[in-house]
């Protein structure tokens, strides 16, 4: 060991250990955590109630640890400490149409679970104490509206989010490995599926980038078939998927190509440039 970081700035943020890639530094990190390429932050909410496990992005009780809560298994949570956990999805079905409940055959109540971080933040100051929680009386594979009549009420303890007086996520909230569950799976469909706005701020999807004659950035979508470095910079265009360059041109790498020929259609990108091209 040549050197050992000692204080907080040396340890926490800025020390890149020998052998670690630049992406381990915050200014180079993918910083994508919802659901994420690095970790899936949503998993912090699964054990927010003592005794049961929730779905990380839904009102669904996936597991019950304590027998006294056995009746909650596969039910839907509707209210916590008086706050609705779901809402009614409303809006126009067509442009300029009337605002209606957006029910579907799969979701006849038009009920929509509100994202945990925002819903639960209103009661996090009650961590360590029990709060009144309302669930559907019966298991429910579908979402239910907050005023669903057939309910059961239990008192559940909310776990604290942080270890006391630290910025560390409480140890009993997430087990080792929890945060890296449910990541995007780039080797399956997820890279192909990521809309451009979903990409991390470091934009690994924008490649062969150089300044054009106006001083603006010009480059290619990395899934674009036609990303030759021989293309003059001023002609390099980032096409958001799935817009075709011409109506018949298979602009982007297809699913089949990605699965079967990934090692051919994708190149290593080094220094922002496609490799394997003179």
């Amino acid at each position, binding site marked *: *060991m*040549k*050197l*050992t*970081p*000692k*204080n*907080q*700035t*040396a340890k926490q*943020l*800025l*020390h*890149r*250990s*020998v052998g670690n890639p630049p992406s381990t*530094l915050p*200014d180079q990190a993918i910083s994508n955590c919802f659901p994420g390429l690095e970790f899936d932050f949503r998993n912090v909410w699964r054990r927010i109630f003592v005794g049961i496990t929730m779905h990380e992005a839904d009102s669904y009780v996936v597991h019950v640890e304590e027998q006294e809560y056995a009746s909650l298994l596969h039910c839907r949570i509707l209210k916590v400490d008086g706050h609705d956990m779901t809402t009614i999805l409303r809006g126009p079905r067509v442009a300029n149409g009337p605002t209606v409940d957006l029910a579907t055959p799969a979701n006849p109540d038009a009920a929509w679970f509100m994202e945990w971080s925002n819903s639960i933040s209103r009661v996090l100051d009650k961590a360590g104490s029990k709060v009144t929680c309302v669930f559907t009386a019966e298991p429910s594979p579908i979402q239910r509206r907050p005023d669903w009549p057939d309910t059961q009420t239990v008192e559940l303890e909310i776990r604290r989010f942080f270890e006391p007086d630290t910025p560390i996520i409480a140890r009993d909230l997430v087990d080792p490995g929890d945060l890296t569950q449910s990541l995007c799976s780039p080797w399956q469909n997820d890279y192909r599926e990521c809309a451009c706005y979903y990409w991390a701020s470091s934009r690994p999807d924008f490649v062969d980038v150089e300044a054009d004659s106006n001083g603006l950035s010009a480059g290619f979508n990395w899934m674009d078939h036609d990303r030759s470095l021989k293309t003059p910079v001023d002609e390099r265009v980032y096409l958001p998927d799935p817009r075709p360059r011409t109506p018949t041109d298979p602009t982007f790498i297809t699913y089949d190509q990605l699965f079967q020929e990934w090692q051919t259609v994708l190149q290593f990108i080094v220094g922002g440039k496609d490799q394997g091209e003179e």
Partner: protein
Amino acid sequence: MIAGSAPRSRSAHLVDDVLFLPNGSRVFALDAETSSALDALLGSGDEEAIEQRLRELGVDVPPLIDDTPVSSPPLHALSLAVAQKCNLGCTYCYAQQGEFGGAAKNMPLDVALDAVALLFRDVAPGERVNLSFLGGEPLINRGVIRAATERAVELAGERGATATFSITTNGTLLTEQDGAFFEQHGFAVTLSIDGLGAAHDALRPFKGGNGSFGRIVENAASLLRMQRRMQVSARVTVTPHNLDLRETLGGLLGLGFHSVGFSPMLASPTGNAEMDEDALSAMLEQMIACGEEFERRVLAGERYAFTNVVNALREIHKGTHRPYPCGAGAGYLGVSADGELAACHRFVGDEAGAMGSVADVDRGKQNAWLAERHVHRQEPCSSCWARYLCGGGCHHEVLARGRTACDYVRGWLHYCIGAYARVLDARPDWFGAA
């Protein structure tokens, strides 16, 4: 210590086998071989080779502090010069016996309340602000202290904010009732005491010439007994005439002060009692002796509240790096008895630090001052490894007398970096509790 702490590179400094990097105030422990090679490189003065070596060690990062000055910062703290008058006649006083070179005056209540209103004007729920009372001797005007404090408590309640309070006093006018009030509001009370008995009396006499130590100790005793929420600390201004810091520190902590800190007299309006090179060198020796006693006590599991080293170790542990020495002129402003704003309590009545009035901060003047005072604009700071810990030194002292204490400051920080590594290794729990 002064020779060992001299700047050899702007990018790195070695304290034995401990590497300090100004960029991010990062501290690393090195093995002996790496340390010795780096020491030789630092001795060469080849800045390019030093930076290349840092890259090889994997510790180079983009500069964390650029040339951009702080601009229109939110206000977090105000100090009110509630009494620009004093019953002591300390010859070195930056406030010139309390009056800042003008007429003796008290701050009227409406000015104090306007200042409190300004402090809370943009405060958001959950934020913390500090209101401090200075002078002169602030307790000459205790009615205004009480009213301003109560108003701040009221506004903090309305805004869902937290108000903290502090006062710096010469201690001669303190009463039990003051103590009860300070305890009620959790004040940080700082008493200016320059030594034990005669050493103090020679520097801080009443205007009539009598010593003030006996009175202060008598008054302080009841506060020290009362302190629960409040913290009663001592601050020692060090001159060439009271350099026995080790004895002073032990004596004042023995009296029950929550903590004791030292500050050298670098610029006095009369030039009286200013520290010269020899005195600063003697002070550094004493400070290190106090620091070593601190280390012994901490390793033995005792509390030993030597403020200078406690603060330095905490800041080094966090890796504090900043382009200014303090919050003066930024989140912290001073208010004169007339309601004029100044860069800090020392600039009261001084056009050099004028920043508007309690009606509003003069953002133009403030931003110009902050741009001018950024450490990247100071010399010889740009080549100094300590620049982001020191921030360029007290604005008031530097503007009055230049940078006369760089060797002292570096020597002290050099010691503190070493002490940090030792305490961290031996008592990592000290930082957890700190």
